[in-house]
């Protein structure tokens, strides 16, 4: 790879991928831009098209329509090796019949490099991932975490400007997964190249990525910084999928000082700050509220909260201790899961049991208006950090 094409900016322009004529497309007229040197996570449930995008960027799959640009150059019709990308496969795909050293040196061997040259470079990379002692082992003799590092070294030996990672942590146990995701982030920073990482784990995406792209059914639901995805989800789908916030919904009753007062299906009143948005009375609007900003109070028999705004009464449906906080799921009677993350020190002062009637309340400033039922945001193009 020459130094002039080190730019790893990726543009996906109007890409559609259809596997079978007539079937719904795996990727549907999708636009995405990832800046050079950023860490981007494609996040979504299985079958949402995230792996298909990755494979099209890598060149292992051809778009039915649209173009893929890397560093400003159209690579749609180029071979994987001509794109300056490298891919790390989900099961790592380490060649079982070759030693660790030969696995890492494989790309150089294919390019006709001499044995001393390719082994020298491969040892250098193995040193980087702290596996030089395992150079002569076979992949099957390594642990999962070690195999992952070999796969990383093997992908990096060609000095790619883009590294594509297909669920790189899914084959590891929980402990290693947490360690390796930090390691991936560190390597990305060190190399300064673009990483695109496909995952279905929300917290993994938010932990490592600059930009998180949430997908559903071949389309982008939201592309934003990890912080925004978590704290400012755009619509109910992203809110529910990421899981850091609850979805509220109701019909607008009246306006009050830049906020809409809406009545939910169960008769509770909620206040949703509108910002610059306009809503009409009677309109069905959606909002999100952070789970860690919900106060949960035991409700005494006979007490009715009907007159209180930003609160509702319900029954505790489930309680999960998460260590530093307790996840309290409350059944409000409308089918929507409502969760309050209560700090452990608050919860254990007066622990609530499953089935207890409670009052959940929050402040209006923690509520955000969602796009659902309203004109959609203009663009889903990611502006990477």
């Amino acid at each position, binding site marked *: 790879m020459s130094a002039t094409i080190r730019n790893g900016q990726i543009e996906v322009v109007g890409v559609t991928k259809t596997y079978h004529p007539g079937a719904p497309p795996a990727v549907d007229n999708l636009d995405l831009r990832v800046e050079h040197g950023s860490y981007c996570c494609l996040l979504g449930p299985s079958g949402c098209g995230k792996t298909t995008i990755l494979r099209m960027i*890598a060149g*292992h799959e051809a778009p039915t329509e649209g173009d893929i640009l890397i560093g400003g150059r159209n690579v749609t019709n180029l*071979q*994987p*090796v001509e794109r300056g*990308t*490298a*891919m790390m*496969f*989900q*099961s790592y*795909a380490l*060649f*079982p*019949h070759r030693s660790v050293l030969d696995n890492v040196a*494989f*790309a150089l*061997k*294919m*390019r006709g490099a001499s044995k001393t040259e390719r082994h020298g470079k491969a040892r250098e990379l193995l040193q980087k991932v702290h596996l030089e002692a395992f150079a002569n082992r*076979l*992949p*099957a*003799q390594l642990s999962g975490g070690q195999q992952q590092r070999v796969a990383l070294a*093997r*992908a990096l030996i*060609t000095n790619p400007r883009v590294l594509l990672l297909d669920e790189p942590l899914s084959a590891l146990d929980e402990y290693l997964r947490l360690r390796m995701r930090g390691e991936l982030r560190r390597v990305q920073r060190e190399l300064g190249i673009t990483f695109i990482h496909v995952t279905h784990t929300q917290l993994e995406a938010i932990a490592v990525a600059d930009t998180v792209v949430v997908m559903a059914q071949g389309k982008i639901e939201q592309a934003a910084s990890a912080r925004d995805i978590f704290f400012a989800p755009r619509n109910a789908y992203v809110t529910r999928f990421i899981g850091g916030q609850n979805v509220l919904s109701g019909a607008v009753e009246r306006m009050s000082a830049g906020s809409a007062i809406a009545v939910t299906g169960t008769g509770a009143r909620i206040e949703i700050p509108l910002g610059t948005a306009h809503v009409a009375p009677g309109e069905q609007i959606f909002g999100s509220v952070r789970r860690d900003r919900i106060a949960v109070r035991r409700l005494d028999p006979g007490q009715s909260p009907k007159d209180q705004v930003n609160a509702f009464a319900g029954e505790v449906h489930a309680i999960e201790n998460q260590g530093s906080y307790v996840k309290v799921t409350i059944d409000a009677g409308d089918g929507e899961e409502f969760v309050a993350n209560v700090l452990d020190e608050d919860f254990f002062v007066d622990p609530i049991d499953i089935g207890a009637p409670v009052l959940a309340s929050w402040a209006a400033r923690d509520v955000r208006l969602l796009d659902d039922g309203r004109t959609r945001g203009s663009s889903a193009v990611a502006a990477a950090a």
Partner: protein
Amino acid sequence: MLKTATGKRPWTFYVLAAFFVLFVLFLYGPMSVIYILSFQGPEGGLTFPMNGVSTQWFHELVENGRSGDIAGSFQRSILLAAVASVLTVVICVAAGLGFRRRFPGAGIVFYLVIASLVMPGIFVGLGISLGFQLLGLETDWRISGLGAQLTWTLPFGLLVMFAVIGRFNRSFEEAARDLGATAWQRTREVTLPILLPGIIGVALFGFTLSYDEFARTVLTAGSENTLPLEIWAMTTNVTSPALFAVGTVTTIISFVVIGVSLGSIALIQRRRGRGAGTH
């Protein structure tokens, strides 16, 4: 162990155990009789009792022509089996890799290949020998015999290849492609080495199916016999335990071939550690 809570086995255990013993006797009894009788003493005959023990009938096989052309037919059979095995491997590996792409007409081609497994072998042989006659050609074990045997080994080899390739993870090839390997480099450096244990299995199938093939070969071998044909001829005109000695020797050879194949597969798997490469 199958035991009830009281420690007693149910009566069905004994019934099934007895049935299994009968099955094993039925399976291996007749063959064992041949192996034992092949060590019949010099004065002994074709049946029990054993009249002493000797290896004289094995010597007789090699030494004089009284027991037919055992050495010659054995050489022909080994050569034929080796050639059939090589051709089976080359054609089946190529076909197996080719069938991964759903080319137009793949279904029809597959059924055509499998059809020759279903057809009675004797008619396949008859058809080939008639075809040769029509064309005015002599049947010969090197040509018509080999062709007839391939109608038997190729479909088998292809089915084995399908099983082998079915467990092959395509991401190995994609990884190689990603790392810049050309189509030929992918096949040589990645696909074939990973499939090697399965390919040895195909070779073994090709060899053993050819080595003891009778029905398709009997009408297509021409004037010179392969070993199974020679043995068949001997059953009608050889009246000494030399016949049994042939059975013992051929069995040993079959076991050696199978042992070498399985041994090399096991060695490859062990070198790759815990059975990696197929998942």
